[in-house]
């Protein structure tokens, strides 16, 4: 009797504790975001005097200044070009590779899969210099093209691991049934595997989008500083000066560059959550 009376109390304490922790975690995420957003409407004096207060006026001039000073519209266009092209290339390479690996039962398949996994072991800094030499040797230094080819190479290990695990969970019977109906391997990939792998593809797209969009070092060195080509992450630091940075403008510029990230996340988040929750896919 005492045990049964205690259990609801313990449950209640657990529930209150977990609820409180969830709210604290939520605050940890929301407070900086709030500070970030309100600061983009203030000047330095307001930011430092009353950091968490709402701005006196919702003046968008900081956004205009940031866009003008760092030429952010061009930079966003360049980031879109680079990121989208690299994402398309990543999927074009990762999907057939994962399809082949998922269907393979032999040693060769496992060996190739391990080769892809080795990609995780290469630190990006270590690859910078050889990559730079390669770009120079190919005549693609200071061009977006080289980075469009490079980014998928860095993303393939994770993309293939994720997509292969999704495709392995697809019952073989579906593929066999399609084959018996005369479907080619490409048709099996397109009409059987791809529809079922949409959550996995969304996950790969989202993770790689964040990685490509936020890339700084490689675009800085390989694409270079030409405003006609430089990406958003290379343009944004020009709002920071040695002395006298206008933090309102810097925050506004950063917020502007985050809008595409938010949009992409909004579009893909449900699929990614589905992928994370399911862990496997039913046919």
């Amino acid at each position, binding site marked *: 009797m005492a045990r049964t009376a205690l259990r609801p109390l313990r449950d209640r304490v657990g529930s209150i504790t977990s609820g409180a922790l969830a709210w604290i975690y939520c605050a940890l995420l929301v407070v900086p975001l709030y500070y970030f957003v309100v600061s983009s409407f203030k000047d330095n004096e307001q930011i*430092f005097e009353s950091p968490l207060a709402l701005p006196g006026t919702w003046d968008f001039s900081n956004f205009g200044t940031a866009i003008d000073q760092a030429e952010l519209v061009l930079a966003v*266009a360049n980031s879109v070009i680079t990121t989208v092209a690299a994402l398309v290339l990543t999927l074009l390479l990762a999907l057939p590779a994962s399809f082949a690996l998922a269907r393979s039962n032999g040693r060769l398949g496992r060996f190739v899969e391990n080769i892809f996994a080795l990609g995780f072991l290469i630190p990006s800094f270590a690859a910078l210099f050889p990559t730079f030499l390669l770009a120079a040797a190919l005549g693609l230094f200071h061009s977006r093209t080289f980075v469009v080819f490079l980014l998928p190479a860095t993303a393939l290990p994770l993309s293939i691991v994720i997509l292969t695990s999704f495709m392995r969970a697809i019952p073989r019977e579906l593929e066999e049934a399609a084959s018996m109906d005369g479907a080619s391997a490409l048709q099996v990939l397109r009409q059987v595997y791809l529809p079922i792998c949409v959550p996995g593809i969304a996950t790969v797209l989202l993770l790689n989008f964040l990685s490509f969009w936020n890339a700084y070092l490689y675009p800085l060195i390989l694409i270079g500083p*030409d405003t006609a080509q430089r990406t958003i992450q290379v343009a944004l630091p020009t709002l920071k*000066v040695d002395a006298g940075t206008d933090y309102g*403008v810097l925050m506004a510029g950063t917020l502007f560059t985050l809008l595409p990230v938010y949009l992409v996340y909004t*579009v893909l988040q449900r699929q990614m959550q589905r992928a994370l929750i399911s862990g496997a896919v039913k046919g």
Partner: protein
Amino acid sequence: MTHAISRRAVLRAAIGAGIASPLLAGCGALTPASSRPGALSVHTQLSGAVAGARVFSDAVATYERRFARTVALLKNGSDLPIVFETSSLAGAEADVALVNLQGRTLSWTGLGATIPVTRLLDDWGLRDKIIPEAVAEWTDGSGNVRAFPFTRTNWPVSFNTRLLDEAGVGIPTTSDELIAAAQALRAKGIGPVTVGGSDWSGQKLFLQIIQGFLTAEESKKVFASGKLSESAGAVAGVEHFVELRDAGVFIDNVQGYTSDSELTQFNTGKAAIVPAMSSALAKVPAERAKEVTVGGWPKPSRGGVLDHPSVIQSYNGHGIWISENGAKKLDLVEPFVKYLYSDEVTDAMILGSGRDMSRVTGTLSTDFPLVAQASRLTAAQVSPVMLPDLTIPQSAFEPMIQATATAYGPVSVERIVDVFEKAYATA
């Protein structure tokens, strides 16, 4: 099984993006101007939010229109030197670079990444247009002028007279007066001297204070070798710094401040005194500027080698460097550089952005009163001291900043000297 995103939608998006990307890439604005025939590429730190960036890019646009030339502006901030160097390795560096002389750039001309402009100064008739001391400062040990000196900088100390009045003190000119002023300000709840204890701005002030006990020649020797303990003057300078620090001259927790936060402290009236370079003075809001008088760092009350409060004066602003690529097209570089030294551009930079220029000129800033005040300081008011950047070895530059940051914390003279010397030894 249904999904929010259909297979068709994904395919459409992929195909659309694949088609749109090259189309977008073909847009004029997204095609590098540097790839056009006859274009001159100029890699500049005068970009983004830097004072003078807008005036400079407008001047370049005027040059393009007036002379029917193409100039591609490549823009970076503090990351310019590393980008220029990697570009240089690939033979794809810009023809001209506008960057200051410090750290990595000190070795550019010696390594052949840029050409000396000694002969060009005369051939292009620019020598008489540039302040002689500026040319001297940009000349290396072999007698080569590394680049055309373009902007320069004063490093005065700004005093908020309203806050000093509130505390009942005047502008301090000696260290004893400074300590008294700091105590009076603290009694009123006002921060005394604000400085970026954790970065280069704190380093500059530390080295400026030490120079109160060193002659110019001794300073060069000490900053080149880092051996403070071998110079009685340098040790006296460190002792003086510690005396000021322990007397509460600097704001609380100064060790955690940066060049940005020091200015914000000053601009928001939380601190009464700030040492800041002239380009930063151009960013002081007009309301605050009305309360500010510009002067020098108070001279030591006892000992020392200075007659007046000290000001760092340097011609080490942005220089116009000519790269190996630029050397192959001097016919394009010459008119551009000459244009940058025209009265028109000089006046625009001074009047429009408050920049101090290395060009001989009588023009004084009107809309940037603090910059103008700093330019008017005479030898009867302040004693100039050197900007140590030119003598500090490149490898010791960053480690030394970490060492000087230590000095703003509660450490002894011996510890400061030890950390400083180790920064040079391990660099």
